[in-house]
């Protein structure tokens, strides 16, 4: 469903090289790696947001619907939550259902700036799901939330993923705990130039533990 083949991608002081991988329906990928290594750039490349990809970079997407939960909510500040979701083509019925799912039923007529950080991120998540995506991209969805809110949102995302078994996900994070909660597959981006040092499927928490231990070995090495 998604094929990534990037020989070399240099963008914004970030160099990513030699990436060869596929994402299949139901894959929940957590993309880990040190900060500034190019995780977001790679995610942007998948989303088609890196202008003029070099010719040797292939981001193959068979006509999939793609949603992107950016780090900032990126809702239009002059439109209410409902209007923002309607703009991506959702019916009022769908909007009501999704806002209930993310616990924002009361705030459908609020402007984004009236919401707290966590609420705005959940509103943006509802907008992502409104297009019924085949692939959901998330860039540090738990960043700058306090621990309690982060746990809530992690649980919410896991619930929403379970209800959509065919939906794939790529989630950029720097916290292995996110991977433990959400991922069935782990990417680890590192090196100079950066490449996928790890691309492993995870079956069960035990395996993840082993993998994370190996990962720590990599990080420390």
């Amino acid at each position, binding site marked *: 469903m998604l094929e990534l083949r990037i020989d070399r991608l240099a963008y914004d002081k970030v160099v990513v090289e030699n990436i060869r991988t596929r994402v299949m329906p139901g894959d929940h990928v957590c993309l880990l790696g040190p900060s500034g290594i190019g995780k977001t750039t790679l995610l942007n490349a998948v989303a*088609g947001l890196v202008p003029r990809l070099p010719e040797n970079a292939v981001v193959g997407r068979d006509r999939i619907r793609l949603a992107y939960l950016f780090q900032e909510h990126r809702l239009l500040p002059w439109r209410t939550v409902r209007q923002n979701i309607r703009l991506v083509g959702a019916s009022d019925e769908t909007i009501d259902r999704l806002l209930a799912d993310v616990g924002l039923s009361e705030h459908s007529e609020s402007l984004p700036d*009236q919401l707290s950080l966590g609420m705005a991120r959940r509103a943006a998540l509802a907008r992502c799901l409104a297009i019924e995506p085949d692939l959901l991209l998330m860039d540090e969805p738990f960043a700058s939330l306090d621990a309690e809110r982060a746990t809530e949102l992690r649980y919410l995302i896991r619930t929403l993923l379970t209800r959509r078994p065919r939906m794939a996900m790529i989630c950029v994070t720097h916290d292995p705990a996110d991977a433990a909660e959400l991922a069935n597959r782990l990417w680890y981006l590192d090196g100079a130039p950066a490449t996928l040092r790890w691309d492993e499927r995870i079956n069960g928490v035990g395996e993840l533990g082993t993998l994370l231990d190996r990962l720590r070995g990599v990080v420390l090495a």
Partner: protein
Amino acid sequence: MSRSLVTTASSPPVRFWTRWIALPALLAIWALLAHGLATPLLPTPVDVAQAAWRETASGELVHHLGVTLWRVAISFVLAMALGTGLGVFMGRHTSANAVLDPLLVFFLNLPALVTIILLYVWFGLVETAAILAVVINKVPNVTVTLREGARSLDGRLEQMADVYGFTFGQRVREVWLPQLFPYLMAATRGGLALIWKIVLVVELLGRSDGIGFKLHMAFQVFDVATILAYSLVFIAVVQLVEIVLLQPLERRASAWRHIGGAHA
């Protein structure tokens, strides 16, 4: 108690009547001076009011005012449309900006009078030349303002619009217009003031109607009362446009700015 606290905490309240100090004071000084000097070169406010009434009763004022307003409106719409399109284009494409910028600087510095004379010489004393001269004078200003606006467009919202496949129409209406609105308002305000001044010059030099033409006629017989009557009426009309049209529009379009911030 709590009320007084609120008042002191916020910015000092501006009372309604504070806006009505300067203009009546000017009027009083004018009246005193005019009575003191007692010369036809500085008519009293009453003389000017009488001149305005005379011109209104004869239908002259309404006719010429209408003609000038029409010219202002047409030139304004054309200049805003062209300037906005060009400004946004140049703001978003650096290469286009590099090519067009010298041209923009040239037209910015081209004196209004030169444009007007040249167009009258080339096309004759016709309406098209008059309107075109005003538009050519105003477009560069609008372009510069809107280019700034386009440069300040939030790239993060552009990416959002890319990901969700916004149509061009949606992008303009939902993403760009709200961000460009302050720049459009600035261009509009400056635009109206500048355009009506240029329109008067255009009329004075080559039209046989409009306020500029009437001012020219009054100037030839040193009829200062009529000159002031026409000018003041037009200033009042422009003020009316500001109060009735622009201010409500601005309040409506920027309402979202004042509602937000409860949590942020």
